[in-house]
């Protein structure tokens, strides 16, 4: 930065060149559209939570917030007996956010499952890592997405004087303001909805990049000129709700790295668990279509089968384990086996493709990307929705301070503060997740040896484990 101390007049080149926003039109005069302070485009968990957090923020009492939700309004009169197959792992940091606007209380009144321990181990060796907190505090919570959505909807209704929610509406076009203020040109973002109506906003929070019925790689990002780094994994995830053979305390999350991909079992109740199995596209399609008994057998053998072990790796692992036990007298817990699965809930098997995505810039004048619009991650670390909630936390904090300072909400000043905060965190997490995924996708001996020893060593170093847990639970 010191090198950029230019002697010339305003000639300092920005470190990040933000290209001009494409499709910038001049609008003459003030039109009759409503001018909102913040429009959250794209609902879902992250969009609804963003609108909720802003609505409940004390400095936003007299501001106008709009949430554009593509789906219909879901009214949950009674909690259904059967658990939904889409669940999310909520970190303590996200739980704090949800409780800051009262949604967590609703979730507690419905249902959720806390887990206190996490065991992650390899299929190709005996190496494992066990995460838990000192007093066996809750490490995280498994909550169904429907439950979270319902809690958010209830809290949105509580602030309906500030937050308007438009259901079944989706933005089909955005017009960005000109980069420099020109006379007679409206400085706001113009949004056109599917039904043809238009509105203006001082700040657009983009949660979903979909325009109309496009896929999630839509033209919005191109129109906004934001570079995106993304690739598809050669894996799809299969989710299902499983019945366990016998009721257990079920407060442990299990994940085993198979060469084809990680398989995870997340606790839902004493007798139920949720499955997330990432595997190749063909295998995933097979799993979804095979009959129940074979499916259950496949799951059990995935967790218990030691066929991928090799003697070489086993002895190498034992050697390091011995060395560690010499250096560190406390006994490292032995590998435990997850509960066995008895059956699968009917019609609960679904698959979805996986990929990685990261936007190079999270903000533009009057636009901020949060949630899936900004990043997309492999579910192996259970961080997808937590990253979105983290984005919300940071953005609401910056917007709240800006509002209290009377600043223009769309000003790049505080938006870049949000971008820096979140890019630092998210890039690290994305890189780590991608690295883990690649490292564990093979059973080539050198890599297996490397990761076996690495995992054992990490398991032995408690401060390192605590750091990892702290980073993941923000």
């Amino acid at each position: 930065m010191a090198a950029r101390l230019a002697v010339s007049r305003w000639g300092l080149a920005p470190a990040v060149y933000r290209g001009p926003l494409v499709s910038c039109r001049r609008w003459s005069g003030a039109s009759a559209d409503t001018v909102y302070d913040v429009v959250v485009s794209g609902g879902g968990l992250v969009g609804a939570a963003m609108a909720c957090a802003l609505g409940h923020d004390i400095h936003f009492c007299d501001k106008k917030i709009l949430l554009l939700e593509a789906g219909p309004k879901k009214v949950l009169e009674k909690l259904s007996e059967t658990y939904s197959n889409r669940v999310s792992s909520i970190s303590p940091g996200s739980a704090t956010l949800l409780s800051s606007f009262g949604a967590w209380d609703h979730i507690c009144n419905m249902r959720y499952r806390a887990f206190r321990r996490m065991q992650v181990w390899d299929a190709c060796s005996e190496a494992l890592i066990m995460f838990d907190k000192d007093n066996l505090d809750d490490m995280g919570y498994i909550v169904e997405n429907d439950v979270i959505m319902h809690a958010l909807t209830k809290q949105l209704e509580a602030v309906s004087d500030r937050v308007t929610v438009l259901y079944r509406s989706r933005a089909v076009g955005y017009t960005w303001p000109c980069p420099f203020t020109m006379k007679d040109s409206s400085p706001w973002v113009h949004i056109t909805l599917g039904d043809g109506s238009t509105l203006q906003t001082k700040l657009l929070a983009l949660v979903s990049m979909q325009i109309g019925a496009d896929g999630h790689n839509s033209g919005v990002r191109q129109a906004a000129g934001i570079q995106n780094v993304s690739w598809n994994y050669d894996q799809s995830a299969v989710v299902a709700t499983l019945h366990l053979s016998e009721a257990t305390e079920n407060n442990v999350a299990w994940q085993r790295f198979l060469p084809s991909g990680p398989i995870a079992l997340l606790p839902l109740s004493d007798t139920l668990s949720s499955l997330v199995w990432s595997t190749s596209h063909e295998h995933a399609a097979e799993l979804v279509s095979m009959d129940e008994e074979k499916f259950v057998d496949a799951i059990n053998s995935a967790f218990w089968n030691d066929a991928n072990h090799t003697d070489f790796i086993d002895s190498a692992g034992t050697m390091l384990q011995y060395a560690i036990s010499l250096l560190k007298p406390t006994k490292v817990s032995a590998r435990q086996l997850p509960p066995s699965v008895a059956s699968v809930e009917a019609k609960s098997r679904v698959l979805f493709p996986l990929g990685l995505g990261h936007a190079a810039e999270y903000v533009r004048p009057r636009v901020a990307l949060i949630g899936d619009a900004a990043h997309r991650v492999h579910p192996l670390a259970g961080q997808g929705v937590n990253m979105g909630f983290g984005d919300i936390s940071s953005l609401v904090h910056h917007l709240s301070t800006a509002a209290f300072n009377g600043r223009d909400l769309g000003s790049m000043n505080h938006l870049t503060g949000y971008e820096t905060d979140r890019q630092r965190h998210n890039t690290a997490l994305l890189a780590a997740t991608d690295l883990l995924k690649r490292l564990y996708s093979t059973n080539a001996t050198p890599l297996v040896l490397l990761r076996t020893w690495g995992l054992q060593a990490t398991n032995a170093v408690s401060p390192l484990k605590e750091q990892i847990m702290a980073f993941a639970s923000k």
Partner: protein
Amino acid sequence: MWGGGKLSYFGGRFLGVLGPGCRSSQTKGPRLISSAVYSKNQLSWTLEIKPGVFNEYRNMWFKSYRMTFSCLNRMKSYRYPWTRLYSTSQNTVDSSEVKTFLALAHKWWDEQGIYAPLHSMNDLRVPFIRDNLLKVIPNHQPGKPLSGMKILDVGCGGGLLTEPLGRLGASVIGIDPVNENIKTAQCHKSFDPVLDQRIEYRACSLEEIVEDTAETFDAVVASEVVEHVLDLETFLQHCCQVLKPGGSLFVTTINKTQLSYALGIVFSEQIAGIVPKGTHTWEKFVSPEKLESILEPSKY
């Protein structure tokens, strides 16, 4: 490197030099600010000097300096030959200053442009004004903390400070002698329906407010203005005249010290070109002691 907000006060008054933060695509000029809050009908008044805490700006160029004021500099007389006397008041508008600002009238709202230092100063000025006004408001509404307050922004320029105050709920009247500035300000606020109602702009001088209308205000803000006026004493007198009893006067300006000459004029104008040449004349800078000496003896 500048250690963020760790400036500590020692004994008497001091000035924190604001290191400008260099964000990747913005620069802000260094400003030395002394601000005074003067409450009418109070025997004593507080001089609050705001050390700049730019905690948003991550990369700092300049080291911070701690200085105590040396001696009071004698101010040269401001009376220029072309000053007109009409009725009982004197015109404090300096026409050469008017010319300077006329040339830049349309550049107010470019946040990376010439007026970027003023934009970034809002981070200091607005909390300063807001917090001091909140002290006198008994119970304020969250979201609109300054609602119910009438504020006069003297020398509002393009409305850089007027708009944040309006957003915080106050009813603000912004005045500026340069017509073009008012037009720019008017245009900018017209797009926001809320601000449109709360803010009113008038192209006039302070004297016209004093003479023509009998309006009084809860607060008068003269931010970065006193170094551009002709007659400082008269100007401040008029400010006090339009204040309600118990109202507050906020003055922010560049201090008159050797450092401010070095940084504010030599560096900012001539070397780095952060501020256009001729914007400031060092002789017209005002030190806090000068302000104090003017305000204290007055019957306000």
